[in-house]
């Protein structure tokens, strides 16, 4: 329990740090960015947009601490500002409309990569010297060396453009209305395959390697020898005794793995024009839509911290040594 509370404290601190970062960054930009943007936006900007931007960059004439307090307050009341590129839609609404796709892509990829990677790692460690142990790790390290986005580009080119097996862009065919029906779900599914597979391909290697190394270390423990001496079957030893213990560090790494999946999903969305918040983030950067950028950053951070928190709870359930009565 104490562990969870202590970690919760960390997460809140990290969130506070990201809010502060969001606050401070615009104020570091040299010159007057608002005028630059005004010059850039050929179609002219509404007075409300300009006012908002001035507030964002701290160019209105309020003292710094007042700006800070008002910003923090606005974040916690759910007001992340109004999007510039999609004026006058509020940022929260823009994010809300797209976050589902990112969750779908990231969630699917993470679960598949973690499950497959861990299983492969367990089996590889159990049969040391076998095919899985000697051939796979270098192969997966090699695949994992490719930058996410390059692999995505390659997959897009090979399977989409050349072979035509999968669609090239977006989450579903234009013209289809989203709905919970078989046709839409099937269509969305085919659009999900390539993006998800590329993220899995790049991340599965580290799961497998991590689990394999942990299993090898665990297999050297005395309680494994004792389990063998007890005459238990090899599969029971492998799962109930070895893997169950090796899983603990793996669960800890899950939290860190989340960060990677977020990054990978982001890049993959850009390559496949998959309409998640990663794609949105890039569009916001290119369109100099600072409120949206900051809003997406905060959302992603909050999501990652929340996921870490959930993982902590799971960890406490799994490791009896950490539970305090």
């Amino acid at each position, binding site marked *: 329990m104490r562990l969870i509370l202590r970690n919760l404290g960390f997460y809140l601190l990290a969130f506070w740090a990201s809010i502060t970062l969001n606050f401070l960054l615009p104020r570091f930009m040299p010159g007057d960015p608002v005028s630059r943007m005004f010059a850039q936006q050929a179609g002219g900007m509404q007075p409300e947009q300009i006012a908002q931007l001035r507030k964002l960059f701290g160019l209105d004439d309020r003292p710094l601490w007042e700006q800070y307090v008002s910003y923090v307050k606005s974040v916690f009341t759910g007001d992340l500002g109004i999007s510039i590129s999609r004026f006058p839609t509020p940022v929260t609404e823009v994010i809300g409309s797209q976050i589902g796709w990112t969750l779908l892509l990231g969630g699917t990829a993470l679960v598949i990569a973690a499950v497959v990677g861990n299983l492969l790692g367990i089996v590889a460690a159990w049969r040391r010297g076998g095919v899985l142990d000697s051939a796979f790790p270098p192969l997966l390290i090699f695949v994992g060396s490719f930058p996410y986005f*390059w692999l995505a580009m390659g997959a897009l080119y090979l399977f989409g453009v050349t072979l035509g097996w999968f669609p090239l862009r977006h989450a579903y065919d234009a013209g289809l209305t989203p709905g919970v029906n078989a046709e839409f779900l099937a269509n969305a599914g085919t659009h999900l395959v390539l993006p998800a597979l590329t993220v899995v391909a790049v991340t599965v290697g580290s799961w497998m390697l991590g689990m394999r190394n942990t299993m090898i270390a665990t297999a050297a423990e005395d309680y494994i020898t004792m389990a063998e001496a007890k005459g238990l079957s090899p599969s029971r030893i492998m799962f109930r005794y070895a893997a169950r213990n090796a899983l603990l560090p793996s669960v800890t790494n899950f939290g860190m793995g989340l960060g990677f999946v977020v990054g990978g999903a982001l890049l993959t969305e850009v390559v496949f024009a998959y309409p998640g918040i990663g794609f949105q983030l890039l569009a916001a950067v290119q369109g100099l839509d600072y409120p949206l950028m900051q809003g997406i950053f905060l959302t992603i951070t909050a999501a990652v911290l929340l996921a870490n928190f959930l993982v902590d709870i799971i960890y406490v359930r799994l490791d009896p040594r950490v539970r305090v009565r």
Partner: protein
Amino acid sequence: MTAVDIAGKTPAATPPAAPTAQGPGRRRGLARQLLGSKKALSGLCLLAVFALLALLAPALAPGDPSLINSTGSQAPSGAHWLGTTTKGQDVLALTLWGARSSMFVGFTVGLAATGIAILVGLASAYFGRLVDDALTLFTNVFLLLPGLPLLVILAAFLPPGTSTVVLVLVITGWAGSARVLRAQARSIRGKDFVAAAVVTGERPLRIMFREILPNMASVVMTTLLGCVVFGITSQAALEFLGLGDSSVVSWGTNLYWASNDGALMTGTWWVFVPSGLCIALVAFALALVNYAVDEITNPRLRSVKRRPVKRRG
């Protein structure tokens, strides 16, 4: 050990000297073992090849590679070994010149991030208590913030350019290594020879850098390699998103232009394959060396050779 030592050679008359816990003998051992490992050797060779190509790029592909000097989208041919981009630039030249920026940024980021991580780790381990708590908190917060989004935000707000890229990469990259190095430094800090050094009045800086650090050599190496990989791939990612310095020729910007100019859609695969492949090869080479260092320092991970078991005679 009182068991009999059967070697294929003449047995030593004098008992063997006890192995030293530290000192140059051990470090030389690691270097020699590395050179003996096939994985490490192939990795190092690959790295050397790329370093060489990067250095020799001006000689191998003279002139400014970003100048348009040919018709666009030509497939690989005798005149252009790797073809041309949609804009009409020579892909081979772009790739060779790209190596310079990518490797330079990669190694700079790697060294800087590792340097900071070493300082944080050593200080944390040596001074302990308050300093350790504060630094750990600092490190953990950085670790929690998601990497790529943070990178994007930082790069978006700061002026574009290579130094910005290096700066934001170092900011996002040092924390992971710091945690590992701190753990290792702490375990060495607890050893008797460090306590002895403290008691004999060695200055803190000397203890940190002459007693603790040398014993962490293999972990530092692994961290450095990891940071370099991080540097190269993250720089490429940033540039691909258009947040780097798009006027510089690097593997990342090559891919950015390839995507922007629609190379994928028009089927001109030779535009984006080389740069990505290079990144992968360099990252793979570094990972190989890393893997080899892991195997050397942790004998249990070494590949198991299946030997036929000879039964009793």
